[in-house]
């Protein structure tokens, strides 16, 4: 058995102020680390939850998003009649041919313009997105210049609230409802009648098609057949995959940014931990000599100081994660680089982020404590005892 853990723990407790200050420094770094992961997680979660795995999105080949895509009407008719498309209770195919356009709206706060997605919807659009629920008002009447706004758009953009009027496509559009789409990307969209919008925007083709699969397991065969069909120029993606791909660029950007920031900060925190641990070793030279004289091996001394540094790091980790957990209360919006539209999402904390953050803090503690612990373990017993 080695030196008891209580020795490491109580030494930290005895130097409470130093421990708290050093741990706070590390906590700050862990906070940044965790917040970045939470941001990435929130973004991915928002975009991934937007999709449903039974749904298939059809886009023009090599289009990265609905905004860039176009599906010709004759291709749409062919795709509509494929046997894989599920049929709804009303006997109609669960398929929507949609138009997606970006427009520029001013924010309520700061008057700054930002891009918002306008989606021209079909009769089946709502059925295909069970997450979308009307919250206030009503759905737009087909053939009218009426729209419904996602909750997040209604809150943040001028003219998007219930009863307000928007101007785009050289027409005025009345907001007759607000829908709640949970934590999905649809919350950042405005929906209206597709045919009205195609006329307003002078668009001869649909942007994308979405349908529910009769049998979701037949997707691979369907994809292979449709993409090989010489009459068609479309690409089929599961809706979940489509949104995951959309989040990828942004998530990667956030991850790299966060990682770079965290690495730079962590150098500072590790140096802080090293100084603290060197001070701890310097203050306990006689104790180290005594423990060695009593028969504790060098490796026990090493382990004891490493454990102390790990505990110090974990204190910082707990502080950082605790602080970061409050970030969940914050919703932020940023540009979705795939569609160039605003996307609102919140910081999301999950078990994996907690675990990674604590591991990260322990690694910082370990790196910071390694040299001081090595020094402690290498002391000459006689010289250490003489340091009284």
């Amino acid at each position: 058995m080695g030196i008891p853990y209580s020795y490491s723990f109580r030494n930290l407790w005895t130097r409470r102020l130093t421990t708290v200050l050093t741990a706070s420094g590390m906590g700050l770094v862990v906070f940044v680390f965790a917040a970045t992961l939470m941001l990435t997680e929130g973004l991915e979660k928002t975009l991934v939850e937007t999709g449903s795995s039974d749904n298939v999105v059809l886009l023009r080949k090599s289009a990265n998003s609905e905004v860039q895509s176009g599906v010709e009407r004759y291709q749409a008719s062919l795709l509509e009649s494929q046997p894989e498309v599920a049929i709804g209770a009303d006997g109609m195919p669960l398929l929507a041919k949609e138009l997606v356009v970006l427009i520029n709206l001013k924010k309520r706060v700061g008057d700054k313009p930002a891009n918002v997605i306008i989606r021209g919807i079909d009769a089946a659009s709502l059925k295909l997105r069970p997450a979308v629920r009307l919250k206030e008002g009503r759905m737009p009447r087909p053939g009218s210049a009426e729209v419904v706004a996602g909750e997040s758009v209604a809150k943040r953009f001028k003219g998007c609230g219930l009863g307000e009027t928007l101007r785009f496509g050289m027409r005025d559009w009345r907001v007759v409802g607000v829908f709640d789409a949970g934590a999905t990307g649809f919350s950042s969209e405005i929906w209206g009648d597709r045919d009205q919008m195609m006329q307003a925007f002078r668009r001869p083709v649909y942007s994308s098609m979405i349908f529910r699969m009769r049998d979701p397991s037949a997707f691979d065969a369907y994809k292979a057949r449709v993409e090989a069909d010489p009459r068609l120029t479309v690409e089929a993606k599961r809706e979940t995959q489509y949104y995951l791909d959309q989040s990828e660029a942004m998530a990667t950007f956030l991850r790299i940014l966060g990682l770079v920031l965290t690495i730079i900060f962590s150098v500072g925190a590790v140096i802080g931990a090293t100084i603290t641990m060197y001070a701890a070793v310097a203050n306990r030279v006689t104790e180290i000599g005594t423990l060695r004289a009593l028969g504790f091996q060098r490796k026990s001394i090493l382990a004891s100081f490493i454990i102390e540094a790990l505990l110090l790091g974990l204190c910082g980790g707990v502080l950082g994660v605790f602080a970061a957990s409050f970030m969940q209360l914050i919703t932020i919006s940023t540009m979705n680089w795939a569609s160039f539209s605003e996307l609102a999402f919140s910081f999301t904390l999950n078990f994996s982020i907690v675990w990674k953050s604590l591991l990260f803090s322990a690694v910082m503690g370990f790196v910071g404590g390694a040299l001081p612990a090595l020094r402690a373990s290498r002391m000459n017993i006689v010289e250490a005892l003489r340091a009284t």
Partner: protein
Amino acid sequence: MSEASEPIVRIRNLSKAYRRGTQVIPVLTDINFDIARGEFVALMGPSGSGKSTLLNLIAGIDSADQGSVLVGDVEITRLGESDLARWRAGSVGFIFQFYNLIPVLTAYENVELPLLLTHLSRRERREHVEAVLNVVGLADRMDHYPSQLSGGQQQRVAIARAIVTDPEILVADEPTGDLDRASAEEILQLMDRLVHDFGKTVIMVTHDPRAAEKAHLIRHLEKGELSVT
């Protein structure tokens, strides 16, 4: 008692020098010296005479340049570092001038420390610790931290820690050096009891003639060489 006269420590041709740059300062020169089992030996001499170095060599925390130290059957001058640490854990008890208790551990935990290096169960360790704290008369203070104890009490805890593994020899470096007269007297009586009642071999370095009086044998060191008194 034939066993009592058998030497437990045998020191042969022991030499040690310190090097400062190119300068070689001899500390011990060709020391030959036996200590019998159950003896109380005082090492005296002026500062720099090498008495602490001799004690450290007997206790196995310093290494000699030449010669050998045999404690019991073990030639400790030949042991490697890990083996030496293992040997110290079982065979030597240390008593220091400034007690050297671990401030963040209670009296009980300080005494228990050396037992953590044995295979004793928690219950067995408890029995041993309580027994030795009773011997030093501090069973009622076992949950106190060193800072809550007087100097004399701290030294008694240190003695309890030194004897808890039942080692063959006890080494004490100025054990009364930091104590007032009355506490020093208590400590010396306790050490005397360890020799008489428990048959321990005690090797003590001291400046204090009154402390040395308790010893059976006083050895004087002068410039690294021994003389018998």
